[in-house]
Every structure is written in C-alpha cells, then in structure tokens.
C-alpha cells in the first residue's frame, strides 16, 4: 500500500515535470537560438541544445536592421494610453453603478452585462470602416480609441466598489466630501487590488493585441510588436535570420513575463475571475 502511494507520487511528479518541460521548452529554445550566431545556427543541421559562444549580435540586429525599438515604443505608448483611458472611463462608470441612485440604473447595468456576450468579431468590421472613413488609420487615436472599452472590467470594478460599506460614503457625505473626491480618496484606494488587477489584465491584453492593430496600421511607423514581429518574419532581415528573429521574440516577451512574475497572484486571481484571452 505504501509502495503504491510512493509510486503514484513519483508518477505524478514525473508527468507534471514533463508538462512543465513542454511549456518551458519553447522559451528555452527562443532564448538559446537568440544567442546563437547566424553562422553557427545555419550550420547546425542537427540543432544543438546549448551554445558555448553566446552572442548579443542578434539583439543588436533586431534593433538596428529592423525597427524593433520603434515597435516596442509604439506598443508602450499604446498600452499605457489605452490602460489609462480605460481606468479613467471605467472607474466613474463602476462608481455610478455601485454607489449612485438613478433612474434606469438596473436597465443600463443589464444592458452593460449583455454587451459582455458580444464577440469582438461583430464590432470590428464597422469599427474598421468608421476609423478608415475618419482618416484615423495609421494613428494612435485610431489604434487606441476602439480598444479602450471592455465591459468586463467595469463589472469587475463595480463588484469591488459595491463591497465598500455604504457608511463610508455617508460619512464622507456628512463631511461634505464631493463624490469625485470620495471616489479618488476613498473608493479607489480601498479597492486598489482590483484596480491594479484590472490595469494588469488590460496591459496584457494591449501588449498582445494583434487583430485590431493589424487591420488599422499598414505604415510601419505605427506597428505594434505583434504586427511588427509578423512583418519581421515575412519581410524582415532580408534573409531567414532566425536567431535575430528569436532575439526580437525575446524582447517582446520579456516585459510581460517580468510583469507576471512580479504580480503573479494578482494576475492569476484576476484571470480566474473571468479573464479570457482575446
């Protein structure tokens, strides 16, 4: 009996480790390939699992031969502005739903919730036409504005705001605190964990955005990393420079992996509460 338990234990750990390798291996491979020199990579008919002469040449190439730096900066601008706008729009809306009394509240909230079910594929088409007609293709406003709203985040914030005892609001009212001051000085600080979760989920979403940026930009000056890496792959280094491509992939992946390792629990809890990729 004891032996059987031990064996099953070992088996479980072995299988879990196997899957861990399946998950980690692509990351290892991209790191490894990114430090192999172009020449050595192309002479390895049988790929080597390690390299004794790592080089950072590929990283230099990634930033010089293709405008990876520009893509990177564009993505940072896009991510920061979109996330900031989302918070600026979603926090007051969530506050209104959580704390204010107004006619039609339930109807509007139900309408908001039902919008959560709408797949983005249905709205992308008109948004594409609208943005094109407004001449906002290849501009940050065209990239950002349609990407700002996610009803789910309003819902998440509203749930959290509703958990703050109403007495705090009344106490603030007695002291003559404006709703605006209350929202920023009391509600948001108390619900900081949720606000941060929302911000991080939005940052992940923005950083990995592909469909909308691809539709709306064809000028490399406005490419985000996802579109950029595809461009690098198809027309990039003039020849199949896979090590340099992998260096670009590493540069793109590292910020989010760092963010994830820093905010692991918040991100996983936030995603578990209903985050879906895409």
């Amino acid at each position, binding site marked *: 009996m004891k032996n059987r338990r031990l064996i099953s234990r070992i088996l479980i750990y072995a299988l879990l480790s196997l899957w861990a390798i399946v998950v980690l291996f692509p990351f290892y491979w991209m790191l490894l390939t990114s430090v192999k020199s172009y020449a050595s990579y192309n002479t390895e008919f049988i790929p080597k699992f390690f390299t004794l002469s790592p080089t950072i040449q590929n990283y230099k190439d990634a930033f010089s031969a293709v405008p990876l730096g520009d893509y990177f900066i564009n993505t940072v601008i896009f991510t920061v502005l979109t996330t900031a706008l989302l918070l600026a729009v979603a926090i007051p809306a969530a506050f209104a739903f959580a704390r204010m009394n107004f006619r039609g509240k339930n109807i509007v909230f139900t309408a908001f919730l039902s919008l959560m079910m709408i797949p983005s594929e249905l709205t992308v088409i008109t948004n594409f036409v609208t943005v094109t007609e407004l001449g906002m293709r290849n501009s940050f406003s065209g990239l950002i504005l349609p990407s700002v709203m996610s009803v789910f985040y309003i819902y998440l914030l509203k749930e959290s705001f509703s958990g703050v005892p109403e007495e705090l609001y009344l106490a*603030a009212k007695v*002291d*003559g605190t404006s709703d605006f001051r209350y929202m920023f*000085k009391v509600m948001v*600080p108390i619900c900081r964990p949720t606000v941060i979760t929302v911000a991080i989920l939005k940052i992940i979403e923005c950083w990995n955005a592909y469909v909308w940026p691809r539709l709306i930009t064809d000028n490399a000056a406005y490419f985000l990393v996802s579109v950029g890496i595809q461009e690098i792959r198809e027309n990039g280094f003039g020849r199949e420079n896979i090590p340099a491509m992998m260096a670009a992939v590493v540069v793109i992946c590292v910020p989010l992996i760092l963010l994830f390792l820093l905010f692991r629990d918040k991100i996983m809890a936030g995603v578990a509460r209903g985050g879906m990729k895409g």
Partner: protein
Amino acid sequence: MKITLSDITKAFPVRGKKGADVVAVRDFDFTFPDGTLVGLLGPSGCGKSTLLNMICGLLAPTEGHIFFGDSDVTKLPPEARGVGFVFQNYALYPHLTVLQNILFPLQNLKGADKLSKEEMHSRAEEIARLVQIDGFMDRKPGELSGGQQQRVAIARALVKKPRVLLLDEPLSNLDARLRLKTREEIRRIQKETGITTVFVTHDQEEAMSISDTIVVMKDGALLQSGKPQEVYQKPQNLFVSKFLGTPPINVFDGKIKEGKLFIGDAAVLDTPDLENRDVYVAVRPEDFDLCPSGAFVCPVHRIEVMGRDTSIVFSHESADAPVLRALIRTEDIPNTGATVHFSLRRERIHLFDKATEERL
C-alpha cells in the same frame, strides 16, 4: 444650538407598489434643548435612525421642517448644517491613518472656511487629546481596538467643530465592559464640549444612564420624552413602562370596580378617584412591598440571589408573563411557603387604560 423638529414625516416608497409607502417617521414634533445629551430610544425599526439621518441631512423629510437654532435647515445638505455624525460601525476609512481620518473632513473645507495645513494639524491634535487617542495617530483603524476606533470616529465627527453631534448606536459594537467605559467617555466629551448631542440606541439602560433627556419612540411616533428618571417613574403608556427597566416591569390584567382595584378576584388597592373600567396594572420589580397581611397573593416558584439582588420569582394567573419577579432586600427573604403576600401602594404602581394603553 437647539434642534427643533416640526411635524416631521418620512415615507419610503415601496418598490413596485405605487402609493403603498412605508411610513418610517410620523408627525414628529420635538425640540432638543441646547447643550444637552439626548438619547433617542426605541425598539429596532421604530424610525429612530431615520430620524437621526434626517437631522443630519442624509435623508430629506417627506413633510415638516427642521430648525437648528432659528434657521430652517430642512433643505440644506449635511455639510452645510454643521453636524458631526458617528456611525454604528464607525465608518473609518481603512486605508488612512488615524490622523488622516481626522483630517479628512477639514480637507473638504473650501473658500473662506479653508484652513492652513498647520491649523488643520493643530485642530486634529487638539481633538485627539480630547478623546484621548493622541498616542496612536499614525496607526490604521484596523490596528485599533473597538473602543479606540469609536474615539477616532468621535474625533473625526468633532474636528469640524460641528454645532450638533449625532451618534447612531455608538456602543452596540463594543463588548459589555467597554460599553460601560465608553458611555462615560461620551458623557465626558459632551460635557467638555457642551455640544448638543443626539444619540440613537435600542438599549434603555444605555440611554437612561447618560442622557439628560430621553425620547422614546415606537412605530415612527414619539411616545414620551423627559428626564430619564421622570420617564421611568411616570411612563405615559404601557409600551414605555415595559420598554424601560430591567428586570422588566410586571403587568397584570386588572379591573376597577366601585373604587377598588381588582387583580383576579382579589381587591388589592383602594382607588376611589377612578371610574369603573378594565385596566393594566404595571408594577416594577422593586415596587412590591412584602407584607404578611397583603391582599395580593401569588404562588412562589423560587428565591433567586444574584449578587446584591435578591428576587422572588412568582407567577400570577392575570399576569402577561408566565414568570414574574419582585426585587426585595436580602434580610426580608420570606419563609419559603407556597405563596407570597404583597401589598401595593398607589404611588408605586402604574395603571393604564386597557383600550388605549394610556396612563390613567
């Protein structure tokens, strides 16, 4: 600053039913005297908190007017009335320190009222000393005991130098020992500041012990008001008599017939001044006189000695409760027979009309 409530009514609409409003407060007419501590007392759901919220300005009355001094504040928002409010669960901002909590109301002040940073801090420190929390200004509310949180809440309410201090069930979240201490504390702070204070409670002992005036409410209406002892000794109706006092008052069905008060078949008292009618006879536990020749005879269950109190537990077929209680002096413990004899005195019992439940 005296507070005058003139014919206040508050009705809440019921969802989905037009016209079927719930009346929380009905035709409430009362003046809270300047500089006093008034206890608003009543069972839960009697409208006392609603009334407090209207004085504060968080709720607007459906009808009637509220005056602070001589000025009508009915339409003013809370911040324009100059009130301090202490919530039942204190409503301290959990993410701010004690100092920041106390400063919070001051930072709202605008225009001519705006204070400099130094003024704000000296105000906060002054009030913290008054309520004796100056030792932990840098802590967060979560790190304080219930009693300390309560003091912070009072400090935050007082820091604006309000004209009126309102407390909603200020002691209900404290344990029994702290409750005694804190109510003395509230009394002291009120005396030191001289601010007109109204507090809401469902605990009659709490109200009686510290109030200058108590106001007893039921079903949204004022039943009786006055000095605690007056109300206790001269309850205007059956409800007030039952609501005040522990152990509770004993109530019997009685009858006035030809100048005599009957409980059951026994004539227990001469009442030449009263006409024939059905009455409730209410007798406080401490108001029974043991007397071997007493006309009021009841079967005894047991004698209870608890600390300084000695009580006879007995019953009576005309009583509204299965078990009754009389407090006596220890040296008067009767020989435990099957019955006990009491004599009743006119000035120590309360008679209420059976139909109206009003005092006779």
